[in-house]
């Protein structure tokens, strides 16, 4: 009987007296902490987003620069293929112009 009473009391004390209760100060503190964490999270997100934007923009600029360089090289190639350049090149190589062409009759 005595044992039973003790056991019953001990059980009751563990469940009720050791439970977490929040007072008004703790509630305020936790709320502030949660808001701070949320704000921090938001800031981190925003910063990351801005950083990604910068990186994206840099990549776009890099891509544009490469495209422009490619275009410039194509233009340079076109310039080098101009007939004026080609004829000067032929002269420098000592090539001679074809003056007469004879055709053989296939029949």
């Amino acid at each position, binding site marked *: 009987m005595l044992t039973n009473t003790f056991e019953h009391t001990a059980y009751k004390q563990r469940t009720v007296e050791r439970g977490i209760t929040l007072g008004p100060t703790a509630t305020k503190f936790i709320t502030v902490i949660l808001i701070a964490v949320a704000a921090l999270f938001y800031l981190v997100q925003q910063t990351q987003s801005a950083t990604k934007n910068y990186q994206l*923009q840099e990549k776009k600029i890099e891509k544009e620069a490469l495209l422009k360089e490619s275009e*410039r090289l194509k*233009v340079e190639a*076109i310039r080098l293929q*101009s*007939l*004026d350049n080609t004829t000067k090149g032929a002269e420098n190589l000592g090539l001679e112009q*074809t003056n007469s062409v004879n*055709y053989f009759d296939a029949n």
Partner: protein
Amino acid sequence: MNGDNSDSRIKIVFFFVILITCVLSFKLFQISVLSHGRYVAMAENQYIFTKEMPAERGRIYLSEKDVSASDFNKNYPVALNIEIYDVNVTPRNIRKPKEAAAELAKILDLNEGELFNSINNDKPYLPAIKKGIEKELADKVTDLKLSGVFLTTSESRIYPEASLASQIIGFVNSENAGQYGIEKSFNDTLSGKSGTTTGEKDTKGRIIKQGDTVEGQNGNDVLLTLDRNIQFMAEKKLKEGVEKYECESGSIIVMDPKTGAIWAMANSPDYNINDFSKLASEKKEYLFNNPSVTGLYEPGSTFKALIMAAAIDKGIVEPDTQETFGKSVMVMGYEISTAEDKAFGLETMTDVLVHSDNVGMVWLGDKMGNDVIYDYIKNFGFGEKTNIELPLEQGGVIRDKAKWRDINRATTTFGQGVSITPLQLISAYQTIANGGKLMQPYIVKATKSPDGKISETIPKEVRQVISTETATKLSAMMVEVVERGTGKHAKVEGYKTAAKTGTAQVPNPEGGYFDDTVKIGTLAGYVPAEDPKFVMLVKLDKPKKAEWGETSAGPVFGDMSKWLINYLEMRPSAAN
């Protein structure tokens, strides 16, 4: 007493607190509500940007041999865009002006002293110290890493073939608007439409977010019918001819007789398109015009073949119709003589062309009458523009037939008293070469939109001017002109050339004509006569070292024909 004082002081302080609060509240209301829009706009101006994205101007291509319009980009671009740079300086930000001036002057080929004087001050702005440099040089400036020196970029039009087809291509001015040539006539097609883009930037002006973009549209590319190699060779042969015979100027046009496509349109003198602004400042704008379509002249004896074609087509004469002619004839009191001042006696109509006999032509004109001559001249396309896609084209002048007197008819038969363009004359010869069908001459083969859609020009028949039979007869007559007449210098061994020469007097603006030393030598014809592959006109203005068209334009025609025969890989004509 003390309590009363204390209350009144509190009331005064309270009053001022209320007053200040009211003032601040009003100001807050004014800023955040009444002027909300203005401040938002100011803020947006600081971090939101709108940038115009100019459309890229389309390229102009010359045709390459055996490359079709569907392989558009395998042809050669003669007008395209590059990025150029202006070198700018903010003098107040330059740390060591002396060293900066020395280094910049060396790279940019500027006077060091003058540059130092212009940058050695506290000015916040200076016009660009060097404009339009290319990337190689711009990179050298960037590598100097000079404070206060920065580059700005822009698009510029370049013409890699410099003077090749300069009067056909034209150029763009500083506002990127086409001037002269295809750049002008196809300005809308080449220009495209600009787009815009918005976004956000940080305090240093770096773009941090791309916003809305209104897509622009780049300009269309234009492919010309001009064959790059034929054009190059025509210009080369023309320059050689102009130098050899000490001519004032000249033109060569080469055309496809079947379609009317222009393969070459060379003029001398021409100009380097990349130097157009320099030429404009030297008052040499006359070089920008294309005399092949703008230059009016009297065709002289090259006109005789066309009058003869009309007479045969109308059944008035045949190639073997005979008549005896003297060395001159009187018309309304004017004496008209043969060019060599000698009588040719009994001649066939073929002989009249072979000898280029003015007296025989006057007789023929008399038999034809005003109406027949006038109608055929008009049908050959004279007196009106050909409507080729080139600006400033002239239509020429054919006097109203109601006002023709006998002397007008007589001079018209040998090409005096009418003014035409070289393009009109070659079109008329194209008609004979093409079995009597006049084709609309054209110089734009195709256009290509930025999405790759290609629109090709379809050759257009204007009208049947003479019958195929007449055209064949004329060809045979003009072969005789080359074989045994005035056109022998145009002959290429193994090939039948049909051509007619002309030595035209030049009208004097004060009336009459300049003396016999001022002439225009022309030769127009086609090869081979039996199935023409090309039709060509050579015109040399005021040669000092050749008296006749046959001795100036003739050899140039023959030389160019020989090259074209090789280039077009033409089989020799069958022997008779």
